[in-house]
């Protein structure tokens, strides 16, 4: 997934006079900045127009993932890092899926316990 940008960097090696490091055209950052503004506006509009149900949650999650992806890949330069670092950082959080699954089962149990045995209180 990161191969194309990596090769762009390699095809245009920075001049030797420059310090080493991440060097990309300013235009890329300005574009991402613009996209982030648009995506934030759109996720705000989801609330503004009172969209409800599955549509609301799908849109919120979609805009959230797109924003997070732009920030991590471009602003935090993950798109240009070596895969050894990318995988070391981005793979471990996938374990959170297990935690989310377990806790949603647990919270369902707690909810029904409250409804059935505590008279809806607690």
């Amino acid at each position, binding site marked *: 997934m990161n191969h194309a940008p990596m090769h762009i960097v390699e095809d245009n090696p920075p001049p030797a006079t420059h310090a080493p490091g991440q060097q990309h055209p300013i235009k890329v950052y300005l574009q991402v900045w613009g996209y982030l503004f648009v995506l934030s506006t759109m996720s705000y509009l989801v609330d503004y127009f009172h969209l409800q149900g599955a549509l609301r949650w799908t849109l919120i999650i979609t805009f959230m993932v797109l924003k997070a992806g732009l920030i991590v890949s471009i602003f935090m*330069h993950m798109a240009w890092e070596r895969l050894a670092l990318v995988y070391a950082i981005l793979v471990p959080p996938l374990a959170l899926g297990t935690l989310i699954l377990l*806790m*949603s089962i647990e919270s369902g149990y707690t909810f029904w316990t409250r409804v059935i045995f505590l008279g809806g209180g607690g």
Partner: protein
Amino acid sequence: MDQRTTIVTTEPGGVPQGLRDFAGDWAADQEVFRRVHWGKAMMWIFLLSDTFIFSSFLVSYMTMRSSVTAPWPNTAEVFGLNVFGVSVPLLLIAIMTFVLISSSGTMAMAVNFGYRGNRKATARLMVATALFGATFVSMQAFEWSKLILTEGVRPWYNPMGAAQFGASFFMITGFHGLHVSIGVIMLLIVASKVWRGHYDRKGDYSAVEIAGLYWHFVDLVWVFIFAFFYLW
């Protein structure tokens, strides 16, 4: 950059070179993060641990919210603002989101100008980032005082319904606000070093990128808080 020194062994249809390098880096019994500034690798590992901390908060918020039987307050109304007699839902949070995104934009530019060796532009952009950050924290202070003093919300009590709302709100936004505040201090320290030419003498502007990583992470966490706590 490193790949130019690696013998390219990719055959058409074979394993991509990036994956070969990945396996090589981890199997070489040497430095895993080859040609990555050590500070940057360490910052990434710190951010990974911070990811788990914020995830714990957000997952416990999910657990509380989906197990609660008392009504959950409508965040759009709670965090709305009255503009000239018209109440706009969630306006305060929307402005805070745009302020934080703008700060990320100026930070990304600062990193770029740093690696170009433009000392003054880097320092100015970092100060601008810190100012955006301070604006964000001030708006959060306003939000907190409104909720505590006007609405009467406490970490253990909430007059609008579920008490868990207060607990998760103060915990999540408080911890995020603490991150922003620490980030502002760190940005000002690094910016003053940039201004005094410290990194020019060193010939290495990596510190700006590392500070930037932390700052973008703070923005990243806000993306998730905005989606899950305020919009859900």
